[in-house]
């Protein structure tokens, strides 16, 4: 049977009555191999016109991934606040960032999203008025990743800093740092409370992630991924992002030496190192064989050499001086990200820049552990590619990532191939900062990520 050309363009008038073949529309069994070609064809024609039908099809293949964000429909309404891990797997992992996030949603989705946003506003108000501990991460929905912009500092850490500064007779810098932290927190809370446009975009993106992403990704790892999303929208505000980078024990912090927190460069990235059964993606690091009990350093210490990302993040090393949140988003040179340490370390703040390694948006490059989307070909496998089932659960991401690996095949989901970018977009990615109004909607190409 002939393939219906109109259907491929998304405008077949006959629909089901059509005598030609509508690839992939015949239900799940519709042959995965075939749609692979068609889907790319489909992509080129038009995002918005992807038929609703596609979204019905539960396939881990690239086919469903190509459905754009905005246009996709969740057939099952995700229940707010709880997430049944079994049911919603394998759906819509396509992060077609190229899709307009303002695309209209179904009424159900809109309602849920509204609830999410309202929940956030309410939480912020409560947080402010209740006098609870400020320096805590926050997530609007339990079991879901943190929202960026909040730093996690325990009271003991803060107190230790106090004592250390006291003994070195440098109380003023402690006070300054604390004040700085408080200001950052307040700014962030106000931002979220007021839900300006850019926040809304970020949160909408967040919502998409929440509903589409497997719930098995947890806290620190997925948060890195979320930063990217948040960053995209926060760029506009030029607001002090209270070092989302910091928050994730992430790479930037290499130079933040605060007295209480020696930089531990030997700690390699999270997800790699726990399971004794499998090989860590840091091939160089671990000997590959499970560290037997009794043999010295399992994964942790050994990984220091291979960890391309120096991952230690002492708690206090963040604080962006006023300037530019945008800068930190650059995939390029780390020098752009001015992560001055606001006086916590006895060292001058300027020192903090420079040696920070790239993956500020660790979402994409930053080691491995991020949300399972470890950059293809890079050294780090994420936990998802590990066979061990329990550690990261049977997340849909893992199955679709490791099994089908189509997410890398299609490339245009996570990383845009270089040739698909316009000149302007390429320029944007290569520059140190995104220019407002010219921020590409597509994900950056793999090659430009500094690992």
């Amino acid at each position, binding site marked *: 049977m002939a393939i219906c050309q109109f259907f491929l363009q998304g405008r077949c008038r006959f629909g089901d009555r059509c005598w030609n073949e509508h690839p992939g529309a015949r239900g799940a069994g519709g042959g995965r191999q075939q749609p692979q070609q068609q889907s790319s064809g489909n992509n080129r024609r038009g995002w918005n016109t992807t038929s609703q039908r596609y979204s019905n099809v539960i396939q881990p293949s690239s086919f469903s991934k190509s459905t754009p964000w905005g246009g996709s429909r969740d057939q099952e309404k995700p229940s707010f606040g709880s997430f*049944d891990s079994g049911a919603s797997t394998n759906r819509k992992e396509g992060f077609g960032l190229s899709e307009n996030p303002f695309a209209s949603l179904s009424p159900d989705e809109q309602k849920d999203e509204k609830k999410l946003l309202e929940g956030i506003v309410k*939480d912020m108000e*409560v947080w402010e008025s*209740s*006098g*609870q*501990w400020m320096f*805590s*991460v926050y*997530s*609007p929905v*339990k*079991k879901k990743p*943190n929202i960026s912009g909040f730093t*996690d500092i*325990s*009271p*003991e*850490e803060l107190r*230790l800093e*106090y*004592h250390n500064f006291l003994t070195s007779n440098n109380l003023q810098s*402690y006070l300054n740092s604390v004040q700085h932290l408080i200001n950052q927190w307040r700014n962030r809370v106000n931002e979220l409370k007021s839900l300006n446009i850019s926040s809304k975009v970020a949160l909408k993106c967040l919502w998409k992630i929440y509903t589409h992403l497997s719930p*098995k*990704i*947890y*806290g*620190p790892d997925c948060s890195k991924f979320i930063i990217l999303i948040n960053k995209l929208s926060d760029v506009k505000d030029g607001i002090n992002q209270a070092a989302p980078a910091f*928050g*994730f*024990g992430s790479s930037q912090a290499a130079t933040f030496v605060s007295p*209480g*927190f*020696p930089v*531990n460069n030997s*700690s*390699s*990235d*999270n*997800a790699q*190192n*726990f*399971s*004794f*059964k499998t090989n860590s993606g840091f091939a160089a690091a671990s000997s590959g064989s499970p*560290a*037997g*009990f*009794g043999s*010295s*350093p*399992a*994964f*942790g*210490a050994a990984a220091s050499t291979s960890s391309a990302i120096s991952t*230690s993040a002492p*708690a206090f090393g963040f604080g962006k001086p006023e300037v530019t949140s945008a800068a930190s988003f650059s995939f390029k040179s780390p020098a752009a990200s001015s992560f001055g340490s606001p006086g916590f370390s006895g060292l001058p703040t300027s020192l903090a820049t420079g040696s920070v390694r790239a993956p500020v948006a660790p979402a994409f490059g930053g080691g491995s552990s991020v949300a399972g989307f470890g950059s293809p070909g890079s050294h780090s496998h994420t936990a998802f590619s590990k066979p061990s089932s*329990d*550690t990261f*659960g049977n997340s849909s991401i893992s199955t679709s990532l490791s099994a089908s690996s189509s997410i890398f095949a299609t490339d245009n989901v996570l990383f845009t191939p270089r040739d698909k970018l316009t000149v302007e977009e390429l320029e944007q990615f290569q520059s140190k900062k995104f220019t407002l109004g010219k921020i590409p909607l597509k994900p950056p190409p793999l090659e430009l990520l500094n690992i």
Partner: protein
Amino acid sequence: MSLFGTTSGFGTSGTSMFGSATTDNHNPMKDIEVTSSPDDSIGCLSFSPPTLPGNFLIAGSWANDVRCWEVQDSGQTIPKAQQMHTGPVLDVCWSDDGSKVFTASCDKTAKMWDLSSNQAIQIAQHDAPVKTIHWIKAPNYSCVMTGSWDKTLKFWDTRSSSPMMVLQLPERCYCADVIYPMAVVATAERGLIVYQLENQPSEFRRIESPLKHQHRCVAIFKDKQNKPTGFALGSIEGRVAIHYINPPNPAKDNFTFKCHRSNGTNTSAPQDIYAVNGIAFHPVHGTLATVGSDGRFSFWDKDARTKLKTSEQLDQPISACCFNHNGNIFAYASSYDWSKGHEFYNPQKKNYIFLRNAAEELKPRNKK
């Protein structure tokens, strides 16, 4: 006044606690005060295991010391010994035979204190303050587990200076608990990992946090067959999550409850929300106690999902708590936990440890 074996409850204090300048509100519950309490905030408390006759209490404080008292049946507390670190002590624990005490400190080391000889030697080293320390006694090995802000979990054979095993954590370790063969570690950034300790420690599962804010304390509970089956996790937001590892029905069995908030029923005025500083399970009844920055402690029955009791408000936050091995004594420490920053820190203020008869008040709600 006998602490054990009698059924006479202590009865709650009747003193008003609001605004009266003359009454000293440091002990509204009229509990037994431990003599020679530490000079600075108490970060951790631990009672001796059942293998040791009698009850001995260990407390680590921000004055860099670890103190030991003998608690007699009469309620009298006798200071026994003390050891020092070079930094504040963040966690303490006992070995299973009651002969050694392990202490973890901000000086990035952990020490083993032999009580009989009163000698302490260093047994562990980290790159950042050691936040948690636990003794693991498995059939085929024994070791000390230390969790640190350097994002590692290390296991030490006390005879060797290098760790038996190092596990990476995704973030700084904030709290941990061990009941063989299960261990739970809660980290910064709302990380939550469960380990299984049979044969050798290995990561069992990473769990999405059931709480929306920073993790503060965690305690494992056991089922009717005395096997660890889940844990309670407390956050800075006045909330505790009860989480079972393998429940038949996760959506229904796992739940969270709010605690340590003011204005319970009055919904119009904004609530004050306090951090949950410690959670401890009664070894016999399986009910739990929580202590918070609001200066109160509460007893809960997680199976009946009810609150059993809330104390009066102390004038300082309660920073730590623990039960003794048979559940007759509940100890809690009243000292500043830094929940309001340095402005509210008063080095002159006295820090207390109180002991309370816990035999009666923590009985579960009857479901006859």
